[in-house]
């Protein structure tokens, strides 16, 4: 794709904009920011999902019983949507089997179980001292080898995103440090303590995607992180932009709007505008991968919630069970109501805490009743429109809700259900306590199921009609064999061979086939081969 419709982002004076809608929930970040980012003692066992991101495609390189060293590659990616996984510490592989992971209850995935030996023996790393002289391609290769995925939550493989960005041509790289969701403080802690590394990571990302311009975007209510960034950026061409602190500014589409004022067109990505968005945590992982030669084996994760005695940010190894981290922070079981993975607005409740931390886990909230009080019962929607005021996609959640309840799929699509980013702002403000996001998620699932069902029913309908046609055809040919003198006047049958649509399968097709078959049969009969009736082609093939 060419860059003809780009908007000269490199030379434009940019100022922060407001996103559509948005809410200002209480941040709840101070508790976990009281201490510095802490290293973590080794857990007895690590559980490493082979596919860290639901779309990825990797296969294991090790087998049960293997001894592995820290940083050793455990999986290789099978295609560009995959990302390599490395051993976070040394130990022995005890099992490669399905284990529960975060998400909906019953979610399970193939995981490598690594019994830690406690020695932390590692492969030798190869730091790169002159990282500022690397070419874009070299940086990209190192990122790819390190198995970095987006640390913001979606977990898209960073190397693949960069490759796409190079294909599209990138004019602006945005480092997303907005971190607008309550409770999560990983980026703020990271920037406060390691701003220099993040800036180097941003430089490396900029080199890799050849972007002429880079902006680090952060919400204005994080003064310590901003001060650290300012000093780290003193001699850097990278710019800093302070955004309004509104949830969900940190969403990819929203941060593009907040920084440039542009909207990502429907069905497209920021790449189509010449914009690449990466998370600050990703930039830090890139720094580690390129400058220190370290694969992505750990990430910073916020442990917070009133059930913890000492909330803090950990540099946690990938695969650490959530329960181990909670115990390190002194979880008080008697007050512990529920554990949420993610922030308080988009996070998911964990069915149990044995699930592992993955490369995309940014926060664990051990909540008490005070954190998340039992919601009031759901009341009727009074169409107050509060939800529409806060929707960052400018949808009408109240209308979507009524269509979702009545399963009105046409209207759901026409009112933009597919544009819903499930940020939860609508349900946050709903005075009737309606779990709107759950309705939308269910409706989206319904629409997907329906479209699959529609495809399948078309397929089977075609098959059935073909079966009917074939049976009839066999009967006909049998009858013809009984009356060998009855020759069909071939020239009277339709011979028109116009393309046939799936909708009118079909008599037309059948007649066509019959005509052909009859012609063949006649020809054969004439050549005294009447017993050798041929089967026609499968109609589905003819359809193409």
């Amino acid at each position, binding site marked *: 794709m060419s860059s003809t419709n780009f908007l000269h982002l490199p030379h434009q004076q940019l100022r922060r904009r407001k996103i559509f809608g948005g809410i200002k929930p209480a941040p709840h970040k101070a508790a976990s920011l009281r201490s510095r980012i802490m290293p973590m003692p080794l857990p007895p066992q690590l559980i490493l999902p082979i596919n860290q991101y639901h779309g990825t495609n990797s296969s294991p390189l090790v087998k049960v019983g293997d001894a592995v060293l820290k940083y050793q590659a455990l999986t290789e990616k099978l295609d560009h949507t995959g990302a390599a996984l490395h051993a976070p510490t040394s130990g022995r592989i005890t099992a490669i089997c399905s284990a529960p992971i975060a998400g909906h209850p019953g979610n399970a995935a193939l995981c490598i179980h690594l019994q830690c030996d406690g020695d932390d023996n590692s492969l030798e790393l190869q730091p790169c001292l002159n990282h500022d002289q690397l070419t874009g391609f070299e940086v990209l290769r190192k990122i790819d080898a390190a198995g970095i995925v987006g640390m913001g939550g979606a977990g898209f493989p960073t190397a693949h995103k960069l490759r796409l960005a190079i294909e599209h041509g990138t004019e602006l790289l945005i480092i997303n440090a907005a971190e607008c969701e309550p409770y999560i403080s990983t980026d703020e802690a990271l920037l406060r303590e390691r701003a220099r590394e993040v800036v180097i990571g941003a430089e490396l990302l900029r080199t890799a995607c050849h972007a002429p311009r880079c902006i680090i975007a952060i919400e204005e209510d994080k003064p310590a992180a901003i001060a650290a960034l300012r000093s780290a950026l003193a001699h850097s061409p990278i710019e800093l932009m302070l955004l309004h602190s509104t949830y969900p500014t940190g969403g990819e589409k929203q941060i593009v709007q907040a920084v440039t004022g542009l909207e990502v067109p429907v069905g497209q990505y920021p790449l189509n505008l010449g914009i690449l968005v990466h998370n600050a945590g990703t930039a830090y992982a890139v720094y580690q991968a390129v400058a220190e030669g370290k694969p992505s084996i750990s990430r910073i994760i916020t442990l917070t919630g009133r059930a913890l005695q000492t909330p803090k940010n950990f540099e946690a190894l990938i695969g650490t069970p959530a329960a181990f981290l909670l115990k390190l922070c002194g979880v008080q079981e008697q007050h512990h109501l529920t554990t949420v993975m993610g922030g308080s607005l988009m996070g*998911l409740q964990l069915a149990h805490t044995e699930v592992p931390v993955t490369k995309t886990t940014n926060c664990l909230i051990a909540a008490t009743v005070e954190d998340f009080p039992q919601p009031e019962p759901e009341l009727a929607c009074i169409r107050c429109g509060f939800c529409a005021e806060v929707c960052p996609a*400018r949808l009408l959640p109240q209308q979507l809700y009524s269509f979702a309840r009545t399963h009105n799929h046409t209207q759901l*699509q026409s*009112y*933009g259900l597919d*544009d819903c980013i499930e940020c939860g702002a609508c349900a946050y403000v709903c005075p*009737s306590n309606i779990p709107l996001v759950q309705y939308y998620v269910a409706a989206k699932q319904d629409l997907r199921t329906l479209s699959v069902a529609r495809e399948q029913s078309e397929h089977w309908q075609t098959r059935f009609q073909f079966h009917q046609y074939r049976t009839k055809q066999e009967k006909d040919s049998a009858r013809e064999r009984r009356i060998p003198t009855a020759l069909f006047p071939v020239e009277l049958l339709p011979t028109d061979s116009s393309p046939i649509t799936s909708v009118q399968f079909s008599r037309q097709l059948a007649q066509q086939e019959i005509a052909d078959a009859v012609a063949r049969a006649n020809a054969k009969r004439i050549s005294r081969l009447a017993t050798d009736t041929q089967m026609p082609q499968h109609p589905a093939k003819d359809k193409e």
Partner: protein
Amino acid sequence: MAMRYLAGPQQHASIATNQIMLQVVYACAPGVAIATWYFGFGILLNILLASLFAVAFEALALHLRGLSPAPQLQDNSVLVTAVLFALTIPPGSPWWLVGSGIGFAVLIAKHAFGGLGQNPFNPAMCGYLVLLLAFPLDMTTWHVPNAQLLDGQSFTPFSWNGLRQSLLASFPFLIGSESTLAPYIDGLALATPLIEFKMAGTSAIFTALDTNAAVLGRAAGTGWELMNIGYLMGGLYLLYRRIISWHIPVSIIVTVSAISALLYAPHSFAIYGTPYLHLLGSATMLGAFFIATDPVSAATTTRGKLVYGLLIGCSIYSIRVWGSYLDSVAIAVLFGNFCAPLLDHLCRPRIYGHRKSRRLSAMQEQDR
């Protein structure tokens, strides 16, 4: 409830539907207090009666629909309906009038359509209009605030005597000796200053209005004026609490003021009335802030709300000036209710990332 935590926000903003409804009731207080001062206890009796009937009918409707009454009664929406209905009917209306009106509002206009959130029309206004059609005389018979006009007897509404008279008006069966009280109630049609404007353009009240005289006197006109200011205050409180958005009330008030200012001519006020009369001598403020903003039956899109207010403002003025009803807020609001779904459909905001109007893109999708 456990399901509740699995997805979507674990955190919630504080205001709840039942609190919203209560705030609306509270916001009526200044207007109601002023109305009580001028028109006596009848208005409070109306509110009390209407609320009792409303809660009873709501419980009945919920029972008939096979729902458990407790959570739905707690949403307080029926109280708002009752209060708004009570404010529109004449003070000191008999109990059967109040009961039948609110009964229609709750049972038919609200629950027959599916209950809270499903009713296409404002229930309070439906109840009012049904009564207006069925009992036109009762619905236009108002207490006289200061009834020296009548044969020599003085009548102060805000007194024990006033309370007694109001009670008798509401429950005529209480006392046999109602004969001495009847003249104050019956046969005296005095709705709003608008009726004066309509039937006797040069009456004293109207002149007082036109010359801004006697603001604090207990004349009917000034009562209405202060009462409207009370509702305006309540409306501003609702705006401040962000319970209603500014679009509908501002749109209605601007429309009514603009049309009445355009058509106002100093010497023909008997025909069109002054902007002052239209805004403060009628039910405009109550309608703009409390009735038209009922979220269930109003438009919900931003632009839709503005057009909705514009339509209501135009019809309020037109019905008053060229129509044959005295005040027109109820009819205008119902008219707006009719238009609301269409307005919402036409005024959908452009979704993030969509360039063209949705209809176009939907058509293109169908083509694909």
